[in-house]
């Protein structure tokens, strides 16, 4: 942990969390390289979302270590983890429904994080340009004035991705980004993801195997809080243990 390997952006080692004795994540280790797109798959209850929660500080680990570019994330507050460069998208789209698309993006603009900063934050041209640029990326540039509440499910998902993009994180964690989307939206999302994962590391949780094959650099299969298998899509798909778990499921 101390001798941080610069080859990895993220090193997860011995990560364990237990809820009243039930180990949702059990001694898990994996490593993410720069510009890698890691997809985590696994049956329901395998602990996928919990792993993301642990990395971004939403759930406190029982033991283990999560090292991000030399920082131990387990001892940091959520907002500090974000400042270190980790972005997280939730499974259900969480956007601010009472605010407009523009305001949603503006609140994610990485400036004015302190109380004083937020009071004196000015909406200048740099901010507006940047928001415009992101809005185009996420196909919402015509809807900037719209309340987020009125967006479709897919559009909310994109908005949330946009809120992460505007912060330009080095590690982006996406929890089921295409769940509940129409086929057309799904295609557009794949296109969007392919565009944004090029210059950063990404961890994605996804069920849709076609989609996974489309974007994954490497795949980790979780089962009962442990790594069942890890490697390229082809390797994982042919792993007998994986087949057994999925068929048995």
């Amino acid at each position, binding site marked *: 942990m101390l001798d941080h390997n610069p080859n990895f952006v993220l090193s997860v080692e011995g990560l364990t969390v237990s*809820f*009243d004795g039930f180990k*949702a994540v059990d001694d898990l280790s994996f490593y993410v390289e720069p510009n890698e797109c890691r997809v985590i798959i696994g049956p329901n209850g395998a602990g996928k979302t*919990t792993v993301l*929660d642990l990395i971004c500080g*939403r759930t406190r680990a029982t033991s283990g270590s999560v090292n991000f570019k030399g920082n131990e994330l387990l001892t940091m507050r959520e907002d500090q983890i974000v400042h270190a460069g980790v972005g997280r998208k939730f499974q259900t789209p969480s956007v601010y429904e009472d605010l407009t698309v523009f305001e949603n993006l503006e609140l994610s603009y990485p400036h004015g994080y302190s109380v004083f900063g937020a009071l004196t934050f000015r909406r200048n041209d740099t901010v507006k340009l940047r928001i415009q640029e992101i809005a185009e990326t996420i196909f919402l540039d015509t809807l900037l004035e719209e309340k987020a509440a009125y967006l479709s499910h897919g559009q909310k998902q994109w908005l949330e991705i946009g809120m992460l993009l505007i912060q330009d994180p080095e590690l982006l964690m996406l929890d089921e980004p295409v769940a509940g989307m129409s086929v057309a939206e799904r295609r557009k999302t794949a296109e969007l993801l392919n565009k944004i994962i090029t210059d950063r590391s990404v961890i994605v949780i996804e069920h849709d195997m076609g989609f996974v094959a489309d974007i994954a650099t490497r795949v980790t299969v979780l089962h009962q809080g442990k790594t069942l298998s890890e490697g390229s899509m082809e390797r994982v798909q042919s792993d007998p243990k994986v087949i057994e778990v999925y068929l048995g499921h």
Partner: protein
Amino acid sequence: MFADYSMSELGAIFAMQGFAGLILFSVFVLMALGLAIIFGQMGVINMAHGEFMILGAYMTYLTSTLFEAYLPGLFSIYFFIAMIVAFFASGLLGLFVEWSMIRHLYKRPLDTLLATWGLSLILQQVYRSVFGAREVGVSIPDWMMGSLPLTDLVEIPINGIFVMVLAVAISLAVYYLMFRSSWGLQVRAISQNRVMADAVGINTAWTDRLTFGIGCGVAGVAGSAFTMIGSTGPTAGQLYIVDTFLVVVFGGAGSLLGTIASAFSISQAQSIMEFFLSGSMAKVLTLLVVVGILMIRPQGLFSLKLRK
């Protein structure tokens, strides 16, 4: 402070003080159980809880008056009838309140607080208009107001024993209802996942109404019992509200066991401090300790650690 006393005197005092703590514990349990059901299981902040208790007390008063007038021979046992009347009176009022107000507010828990506060004001004025601004004196059968001399020095108040027995009985009844009946299963299911409970065919609307009604009914019984130890007046209910909420919150909302544990710890702390300090300071210290612990452990004494 104890130098002048013999060991037997001290022993007797400590025995009685321990008993005083237990009575206080029972009082807290009775106060809090109804609220624990309503607040803990339904998330409704019922600020009119005290007024539901006082309704029970007034029902006891009415029953006692009726018995005195028409059935003087049975006066010595009227109290049991009165508690049943109190349960149904407060419970029915609870059903009505749920139907007319609370059911529209389940998604806005903080608003239930305001609406029920309004309700409590109205109820107070109703009591004042009906029963007068003065406190009413509830006659208690003689056998309940005496004390049992255990030894020469130790005397145990019978109404204390009565309150304790009642607290145990009601706790057991509530426990049975919540954990052994199908209704209780439904209530717990709804408190965990309302949408899913609805989907699997539980009549959530009726279950909610019944839950609220039972919570209020339990409050009514508590109020009935408190006529033995406290006053019955239009505003007497407000005396209980802070203590009651603290007991429930301290125990951890949603946990009946927690409510009982919290009633026990708060009552013991208060009882012991009252003995060694003056009354007002004991109260302040107790509240401060409870609030202090809640700040460190906001989820209360008992709560499940859930996977988000």
